[in-house]
């Protein structure tokens, strides 16, 4: 009896080990020929690249970041995805570090449908029909506020500095958002400033710190806090406005008189990408008009494709506060381009957040 018991345990253990070995070896085998995609959280949805997944089932493995400055240091430190998804203002920085390889626009089948305003961005040009980044999405940063808890506010970024809402506001923990707004309010050019001007920006940020509930890039918790009423106003991107409105929360995405921030992001290919062909397939799939349409309708972000905009009904776009041509938008907003003092601003912002 005892012997029988032992042998069944041994058998079980052996089967278990065999199963474990199979699982381990299969993940190792698959990981190598899967496309490694490093992106903002929420951008890994399979609906954005349906045709890619149809051709390569289970062919992509996504890693997530909450801020592309953090993503940059992670890649610099040795993390090697095939493609990544930073925003335009960071491209020059990634490039300077020698992390990127140029992307051949001849292999991007919908390249001609991309709005010229994005195609012609100076930092993208790698010469010879090649680019450093293929633009995919763009959107706005502004204040999302509860219309029932903040009554008829002045349309200004100053709302996030309003003492009567102390402790019930949040802002985005990223250099290309909060410090830019502080610079605008301090009357300083956010993209190029002297040390004295940076001190002015720091003073503005210091003034805001005690009024904030937190600095965060976790948009899910910001949305939850806004819908529960814990927060009455927060700096967010379009997607939060779209999602809360869909849930029926009384919110409005402000059009500040100083201008919303407009950003554009896209795909870059890492220098030592192992799956270059897969990467091109993936970018092409993401540039299907259908994928762009899904981005517009589900998140309220702009697609870089004119064909995607053509596929969305006019009244839907109006509801989402998106013009059908980004150039119209850019006339009234501030485009987040590269910031000359990005690193100094980042250090200063970190110090202010800690109370310095």
């Amino acid at each position, binding site marked *: 009896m005892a012997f029988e018991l032992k042998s069944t345990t041994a058998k079980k253990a052996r089967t278990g080990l065999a199963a474990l070995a199979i699982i381990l070896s299969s993940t190792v085998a698959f990981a190598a020929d899967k496309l490694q995609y490093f992106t903002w959280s929420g951008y890994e949805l399979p609906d954005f690249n349906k045709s890619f997944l149809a051709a390569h089932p289970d062919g992509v493995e996504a890693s997530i970041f909450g801020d592309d400055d953090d993503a940059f*240091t992670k890649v610099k430190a040795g993390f090697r995805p095939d493609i990544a998804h930073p925003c335009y203002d960071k491209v020059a920085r990634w490039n300077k570090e020698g992390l990127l390889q140029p992307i051949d626009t001849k292999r991007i089948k919908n390249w001609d449908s991309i709005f010229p305003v994005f195609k012609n961005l100076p930092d993208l040009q790698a010469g010879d029909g090649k680019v450093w980044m293929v633009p995919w999405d763009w959107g706005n940063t502004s204040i999302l506020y509860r219309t029932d808890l903040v009554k008829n506010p002045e349309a200004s970024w100053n709302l996030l500095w309003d003492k009567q809402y102390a402790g019930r506001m949040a802002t985005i923990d990223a250099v290309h958002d909060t410090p830019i707004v502080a610079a605008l309010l301090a009357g300083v050019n956010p993209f190029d400033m002297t040390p004295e001007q940076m001190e002015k920006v720091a003073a503005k940020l210091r003034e805001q710190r005690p009024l904030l509930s937190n600095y965060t890039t976790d948009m899910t918790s910001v949305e939850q806090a806004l819908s529960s*009423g*814990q927060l009455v106003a927060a700096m967010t991107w379009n997607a939060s406005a779209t999602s809360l409105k869909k849930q029926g929360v009384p919110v409005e995405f402000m059009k500040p008189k100083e201008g919303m921030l407009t950003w554009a992001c896209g795909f870059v290919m890492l220098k030592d990408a192992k799956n270059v062909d897969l990467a091109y397939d993936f970018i092409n799939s993401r540039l299907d008009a259908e994928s762009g349409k899904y981005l517009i309708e589900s998140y309220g972000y702009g697609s870089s494709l004119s064909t995607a905009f053509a596929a969305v009904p006019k009244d839907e776009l109006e509801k989402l506060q998106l013009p059908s041509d980004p150039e119209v938008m850019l006339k009234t907003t501030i485009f987040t381009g590269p910031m000359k003092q990005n*690193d100094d601003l980042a250090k200063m912002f*970190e110090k202010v957040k800690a*109370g310095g």
Partner: protein
Amino acid sequence: MSTIVAAQVPEVRSSSGFRIGMLLPGALVTFLLILFALALVIFLAFRANDGSLLGAGFTVANFITVVSDPLYWTVTLRSLVIAGLVTFATVVTAYPVAYYLAFHAGRRRSLLLFLVTLPFWTSYLLRVFAWKIVLAYNGVLNSALIESGVWSEPTLAFLNTPAAVVVTLAHAYAPFAILPIYVALDTIPKSLIEAASDLGARPFTSFRRVVLPNSMPGVLAAALVVFVPTVGDYVTPALVGGPASTMIGTLIQAQFGKANDWPFGAALSVAVMLVILCVVLVARATDRRFGSRA
């Protein structure tokens, strides 16, 4: 005689082979994962930041900034205070649990020990998020207080405060405190307590004069095990702390992340290590005064 010597030689050889085999993993861990990593941090701390991975040129400017900027003193002090409060809260709540386990648990002891370690079965992040749910504006605690009529409106006073950081960390580190105190209490010879009562000590007196002093090494060990990692914690303040509870770990992490200044981050880490070293030395001196039973 000679046969005995001959017989001993291979045995010595095999035992030294055995010893090398036993020491190898430990040596690898010590040299590669601890000493090499530490040397790298110290090396980096003396480099100037030029955006590259290992910096350029040698400088002490990083340390001058750390010492001369009052912000780093403030934040270090804040971290020490928060970690001190966490340690105090953890040890004070862990002691009765350990006491019960050591003296009164009886047959239920192994079950209780198992329950103590149960929270470790889930990820630390999940436990932090659980506290977020408890402390949130429309969370468990606020709802309960409103239901019972203590408050009519939910309060913002729980989440995004230093108090939230203390509560969350104290919960997370509870088992680390319970186990060393339990071991210290369990190894106190029962005859000592009997002798105390034989000499007419009331239960409280024998606790104060026999049990507590004898368990002090365990208490100090628990305090160190809780204090050292919590000083540098950065996930918890980021998730439940709000701007007023930024700790030194958050600042160090930011240097390696957004701020992209690794040498300065390394210098901050070295400075914090020195501060913690001082605290540990003080604790060891205290330990010696209380008379460690080792």
